[in-house]
C-alpha cells in the first residue's frame, strides 16, 4: 500500500472513522486527481461521515448542501439581500439621491448572501470540503446545474460578473440510490460504493464510538445486527443504528444480550413498526442465542 494512503487511513482512524483501504484509496485518488467523489450506499453506512471526517483531517471547513426535491439555485448558490437593498434605497431617497445611480452599490458583494456552493468557491483560507448530501433527492435539473459548477468551479452572477474559485474545494457527493444519478455527473466523479461493514469492522466501530462497551457485548451486538441485515427487513439497520443501540445497552449496564432487553431496546435498531411486529419473541430469542454461541465460539 502506498504510504500516503496508509497515512490517510490512519489519520481517518485518528478522527474516529474506521476506514477500509477502499475508502482511503478513494479519498486519496479524489484529492490527487482533483475530482469530486460520488459515494453511494444504503442509509446509515457512514457516507456523510466520510466528508465530515475528511474536513477534520484536512483541518478545513465543511460546507454542506443538503439536497431535497425542489432545491433551487437561490438556496444552493446565492441570493440578494433584498431587505438591505431596499433599506439602502430608502436612505438614499431621504438624502435626495437619485436611486438609479445606486445600482452599482446595492448590487455589490456586501449585499450578496452566499449559499453553500458560492461559499465553497469563494472561501479564501484554502480549499473547503463541500458535501453535496443526498444528491438523489434533488431533481435532475439541479443535477445539470451542479454539473456546471463542478466542471469549472466558477459562477456567473448577472449583476456582478463571473466569480472564479479561489481554491477548488474537495467535493463529496452522496446518494442513497433512491434514483440513478445521471451519467454526466457520474462520469465527472470518482465512484465509491460503501457496503454495510464487515463483522470485524463493525466491532471496531462500536468499540471506538462507544467507549464503555465491553468486548463481549460489542461482539454480540455486531453479530446480532449482521444477522438482522441478513433477514431482509423493510429498513435494514445501518451503522448509526448499531451505535445508538450499543449506547443504549451500555446505559442500561448490560454486558451481554438477553431477549427481554433486546425486545425493549429494539426501537433503537429497527425503525419500522411492521419490522418490529414481524420479529417474534421466539425469533429474537433464537437470534440472541445464536449470536451468544457464535461470539463464544
Amino acid at each position, binding site marked *: *500500500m*502506498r504510504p500516503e*494512503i496508509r497515512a490517510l487511513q490512519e489519520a481517518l482512524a485518528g478522527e474516529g472513522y474506521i476506514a477500509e*483501504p*477502499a475508502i482511503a*484509496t*478513494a479519498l*486519496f*485518488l*479524489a484529492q*490527487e*486527481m*482533483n*475530482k469530486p*467523489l*460520488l459515494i*453511494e450506499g444504503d442509509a446509515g453506512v457512514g457516507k456523510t461521515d466520510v466528508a465530515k471526517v475528511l474536513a477534520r483531517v484536512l483541518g478545513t471547513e465543511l460546507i454542506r448542501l443538503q439536497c431535497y*426535491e*425542489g432545491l*433551487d439555485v*437561490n438556496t444552493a448558490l446565492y*441570493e*440578494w439581500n*433584498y431587505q438591505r*437593498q*431596499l433599506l439602502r*434605497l*430608502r436612505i438614499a*431617497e431621504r438624502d435626495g439621491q437619485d*436611486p*438609479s445611480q445606486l445600482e452599482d452599490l*446595492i448590487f455589490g458583494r456586501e449585499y450578496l448572501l452566499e449559499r453553500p456552493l458560492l461559499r465553497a468557491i469563494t472561501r479564501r483560507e484554502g480549499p473547503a470540503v463541500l458535501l453535496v448530501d443526498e444528491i*438523489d*433527492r434533488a*431533481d435532475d*435539473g439541479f443535477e445539470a446545474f451542479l454539473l456546471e459548477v463542478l466542471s469549472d468551479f466558477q459562477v456567473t452572477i448577472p449583476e456582478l460578473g463571473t466569480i472564479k474559485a479561489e481554491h477548488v474545494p474537495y467535493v463529496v457527493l452522496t446518494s442513497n*440510490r*433512491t*434514483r*440513478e444519478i445521471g451519467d454526466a455527473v*457520474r*462520469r465527472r*466523479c*470518482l*465512484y*465509491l*460504493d460503501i*457496503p454495510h461493514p464487515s463483522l470485524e469492522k463493525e466491532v471496531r466501530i462500536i468499540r471506538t464510538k462507544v467507549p464503555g462497551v465491553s468486548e463481549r457485548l460489542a461482539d454480540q451486538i455486531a453479530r446480532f445486527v449482521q444477522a438482522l441485515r441478513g433477514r431482509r427487513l*423493510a429498513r435494514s439497520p445501518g451503522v448509526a443504528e448499531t451505535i445508538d443501540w450499543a449506547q443504549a445497552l451500555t446505559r442500561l449496564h448490560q454486558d451481554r444480550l438477553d431477549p427481554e432487553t433486546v425486545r425493549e431496546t429494539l426501537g433503537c435498531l429497527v425503525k419500522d413498526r*411492521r419490522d418490529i411486529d414481524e420479529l417474534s419473541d421466539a425469533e429474537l430469542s433464537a437470534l440472541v442465542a445464536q449470536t451468544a454461541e457464535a461470539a463464544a465460539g
Partner: protein
Amino acid sequence: MSERDLVVHLARFAGALRAGGVRVSLSDEIDGAIALTLVDLLDRDEVRRALLVSLRIRPGDRATFEELFHRFWIEGVVSPHHPAAMMRVVEPVGAAGAPRPSPVVSARVSENSPASRQDEPEPEGGIPGYSPEALLRKKPFDECTPEELEEMERLLASLSVKLATRKSRRLAPTRGPGVVDLRRSFRRAVGAGGELRWLARRARVVERPNLVVLCDTSGSMDTHAQFVLAFMLSLERVAKRVELFAFNTSLTRLTVRRGKGRRGEMGGGLARFAAEVPDWSGGTRLGECLADFVERYAAPLVDSKTTVVIVSDGLDRGDPEILIRAMRAIRSRAWKVIWLNPLLGDPRYQPLARGMEAALPFVDRFAPAHNLESLERFITRLEVA
C-alpha cells in the same frame, strides 16, 4: 511493466469489461490510467481498489469486475484481440505523461465515446407452439368494431398523458395564482426605486413523472391482451420516461421504443412485445414477479417521482405474504401506485383474487378497466396533482 504497457493492458482490461456488459467509457479509462500512476502497482489490492473507484464500477457489476480483474491483473492472461480504436484515444495521455487530460482531449473523448452500451441482444424468434395473434382473434375485444377499437386507443392515449403528468415541488414563475416570489418582487421594487408595486408569484410546475408499468400477460388476462397491448403502445408514444415490464411466470423488462409507432399499428407492436415475453398467457406468479421487480429494478427505477401502474387481474396462486411484501416495498418508494384491473366488472369474473385483496391496501388508485366506459370514468377522475 512500462507506463505504456500499463495503458495498453488497461485498455484491454476495459475492453473485456465492456464485452462482459459493464459500462466503461473512455473517460473512465483515462481516469483509470491516471489513478494507476498514483498508487502502488505492486500492491494488487490497491490496484484493484483504484480501478474500482476510477472506472466507477457499480455494485451490480462488481462480480464481473472481480472475475476479470483476477484474469487480467493476477493471472496475467490477456486476450490477443482488442480494438485498435480504443488505443488511439488513450495513447496521447500516456505519451504526454500529463497528470490530467486536457480539456481538448476530454471533449474529444466524450464525443467519441459510445453514448450508451450496445443494444441488448434481440431475443431470438417467437415462442414455439404459441401465437399471440391467434389468441387475440378469439377474444371478445376482437368483436369490437374498428371504430370502437379506435375509441379505446384514443382513451388510452389520454390516460397515458394524464399518467405522464405530475406537479413538481419545484416552483417556477407564473402569471397566475401562486406563492409570492420575494426575489423577483423585490428585484422589481429595487428597479422602481424601492416601490413594491407588483408582486411576482411562483407556482408548482407540471412536469412529466417517470412511469413504471407492469402488465400481467398470464392466461387469465388473455381476454384483455388487446387492451394491455394498446395501453403499452400508447404509453410508449406519450411518456417521456417509461419503463415497461411484462410478467406471467417470470418478469421481463421490455425494450421501449420511445415516440415510435403510430396509432392503429397494433400488429407490429404486438409482434415486437410478444417476441420479448416468454410464456405469454401462461400461469401467474404475481407475488414472485413483483418481488423480483423490487429486488432487481425498484432501486434504480422507482423513486418519489415515479408512478407505478400495475395492470393485472390480481389472480395469484402463490403465498400472499410475498405479494404483500413486494407491494409494501413498491408503495414506500413510489409517488403513486395505480392498479388497473380489466377483469373487474366483467360478469364472468369471479372475485376470488386473493392476491388482489392482499395488494389493495398499498394501492393509491384502484380502477376497473374492462370496457371503454369504465376507462373513461377513471380518466376523468384522475387529477393532475
